[in-house]
């Protein structure tokens, strides 16, 4: 279905469930597939509750387990299935081949150790080096991420750093062992725009220098457009759309992606997406988004989530929407009304399937 050559990380049909007290399963991730190419950035974008963070944590199995578990699916890194390796092997992958940075720099550093100690720990866990060598490496890393006077600051505690600097320290820590893949989970969400710009620029620089692949998790389409090579749009544990960043932004195919883009401030549409996420323990049949979709037709609520169909015959860009099935007319979504939500009547148009004319005229 997609290009398998030159793939660093291949996530195939990944499911992550969380067992609740009542014995039900919360299907946080429910069949997700995507790839990350070496040296490239794949961004997973979605709202809160879409399962994007759990997906990223499932790669190195960082989610709390129990109650979380992976009922099926594979995560292949360099031909090795990470869901099947032993705990010891997983530990050498974590921080060695795959590193993480998290959303909240405030909490991600242990408050009672110096930053030097924490970077050193990352180095010494994976490399057989002396403490002095590890220290030197720490200074080097901190200098690279742009912390001035690194060798003095090594002995400072996290609270002595500002939010942006903390995130730099965390990046330094993540890069300690030259990972092949860096998973960045909303690394700039907790930061001011100005600091966000600094961190994004830094990440781009470092990625180029090291030819490192990046999996970037974010809810901000602006950030996606800034950093990503490929985009995966997630909704309610499923992939809605996948493709190269240019294609996805120029020809957003899935109605959900289109709605998300509409919501951005400055895009004119003070719309929003009516409705709520489906129940994660008992998702409805058919497309997870059908309930809120202005283009939903009857077949959208039948069977499972639609396959990822090619958009406009480019194999790299696919959307999980029945309108893109070979027998259907994608024009319904692509050329039809793009005022997905501004009329506030999203639900009533569910049955109609066809947008009304006046709305179409109003837009563009």
């Amino acid at each position: 279905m997609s290009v398998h050559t030159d793939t660093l990380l291949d996530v195939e049909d990944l499911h992550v469930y969380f067992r609740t007290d009542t014995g039900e399963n919360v299907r946080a991730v429910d069949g997700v597939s995507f790839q990350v190419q070496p040296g490239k950035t794949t961004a997973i974008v979605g709202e809160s509750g879409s399962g994007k963070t759990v997906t990223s944590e499932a790669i190195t199995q960082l989610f709390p387990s129990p109650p979380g578990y992976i009922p099926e699916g594979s995560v292949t890194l360099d031909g090795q299935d990470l869901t099947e390796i032993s705990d010891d092997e997983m530990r050498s992958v974590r921080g060695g081949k795959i590193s993480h940075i998290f959303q909240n720099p405030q909490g991600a550093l242990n408050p009672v150790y110096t930053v030097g100690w924490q970077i050193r720990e990352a180095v010494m866990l994976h490399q057989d080096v002396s403490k002095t060598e590890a220290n030197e490496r720490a200074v080097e890393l901190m200098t690279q991420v742009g912390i001035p006077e690194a060798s003095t600051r090594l002995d400072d505690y996290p609270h002595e750093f500002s939010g942006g600097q903390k995130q730099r320290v965390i990046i330094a820590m993540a890069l300690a062992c030259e990972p092949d893949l860096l998973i960045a989970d909303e690394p700039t969400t907790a930061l001011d725009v100005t600091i966000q710009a600094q961190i994004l620029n830094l990440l781009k620089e470092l990625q180029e220098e090291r030819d490192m692949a990046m999996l970037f998790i974010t809810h901000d389409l602006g950030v996606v457009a800034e950093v990503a090579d490929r985009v995966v749009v997630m909704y309610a544990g499923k992939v809605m759309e996948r493709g190269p960043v240019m294609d996805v932004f120029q020809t957003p195919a899935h109605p959900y992606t289109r709605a998300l883009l509409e919501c951005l401030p400055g895009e004119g549409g003070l719309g929003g997406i009516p409705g709520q996420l489906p129940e994660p323990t008992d998702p409805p049949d058919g497309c997870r988004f059908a309930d809120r979709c202005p283009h939903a037709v009857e077949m959208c609520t039948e069977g499972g989530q639609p396959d990822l169909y090619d958009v406009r015959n480019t194999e790299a860009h696919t959307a999980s929407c029945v309108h893109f099935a070979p027998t259907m007319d994608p024009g319904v979504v692509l050329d039809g009304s793009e005022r997905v939500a501004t009329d506030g009547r999203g639900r009533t148009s569910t049955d109609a399937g066809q947008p009304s004319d006046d709305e179409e005229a109003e837009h563009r």
Partner: protein
Amino acid sequence: MSSSTSLFEVRNLEKHYPINRGLFNTEVGRVRAVDGISFSVERGETIGIVGESGCGKSTAATSMIRLEEPTAGEIDFRGEDITEYDEKELRRFRREVQMIFQDPDSSFNPRMNIGNAVAEPLIVQGFDDEQRRRAIVGDLLERVGLSADDMNRFPHEFSGGQKQRIALARALAVNPSLLVADEPVSALDVSIQSEVLRLIDRFQDELGLAVVVISHDLGVVQEICDRVAVMYLGEFVEVGPTEELFTDPQHPYTRALLSAIPTPDPTERGLGVELTGDVPEPSDPPSGCRFHTRCPEVIPPEGIDLAQDTWRSVLHLRKQVIADQVDLESIAEVGAIEAGDEFGSMDEVEAEDIDNDRLIGWVRQEYELPNQLGDTSAEQTLSQALEELVSGQQEAAAETLTERFETVCERQDPETRSLSPDHRVACHLTDDSVVGSTDSENEYRRQLSSPE
């Protein structure tokens, strides 16, 4: 902007928090969270206040309606100074002004049902007709898109977006004329943000409500505000009509903020002017223009012609030298590591053992200074100062640098100038008497218009 017609006018509002230390808790300093801001809000107008976290915008919100007592300043509401109000008058004033908050989850008492929460402003104002109160609450809930039956439900049964709508209903219960919204949507998903904003916008139109929106998100402000004030370290650096401010920002800080927003367009990559460093401590704000420590457009002293980023590096070095914070040991260690095997282990490196020229090179490297500055007179001063620095004469180096590289931005607090009746800005760049020749101004314009 005559005060007689303004609904709400704030003049020179200050809110300082004392810092107490020692055995008797004597005051040793003050956090100047809000340090003299002035603005007015007309009926039916939406004004936005934007700035980075820690700039004092939330404190401004709470002290402008006396939820915290302001340290100084006048606040007129309908021509009456509310700082003079007594308890009773203040309670009456609370009917006219309401607030909504950032976090929908903590905006509601988890142990009070939604009906009571929305009715609370009515109850505490003494409205004890229960029948009618229920009618009003039901009506309000329906207006914000919920149902009257939701009255008996508890906050945790609603989603974030719904809660923010209920917060709006609560704020409107007493039919206020001014609404202060502190980051009303920043805790919400994008798809829900716009719904809430739309609702605020609608009520504003319908009820002739005046709104003050506090946000760190320029997108939000752009969406619903008529005028915008940009705040930095307790002060307004620029105030103007939204349209004008976004298309023709005058203050370098406004420009930096605008350019830092990632655009959802992959063809336009690259985040423009990058602000270095963080917001300084409001307990010890920089002299002169408070933004000069991070400003990408600091005005060089006369006769020095350097590229802006080099000039900034010089300024940074100078600041560190004056504060005696240049750690030669550390620089030597970093330099040694980068130089590789030549120096054995990091711990063995001592700054004194290293050849002066080499150390100077490393210092330049650390402070991102080229080996030779473009401007010869500047280079002369710099190399003299560096020479003094590495030979241990920090004070002399500081003096040398201060003498030559002092800029008007750190010396003088820029006045707030009106560019048009509605557009005010506080920056030396807009002051012809400071910038002098139009050349340099054009230079800055040119630098800005060309993306990096």
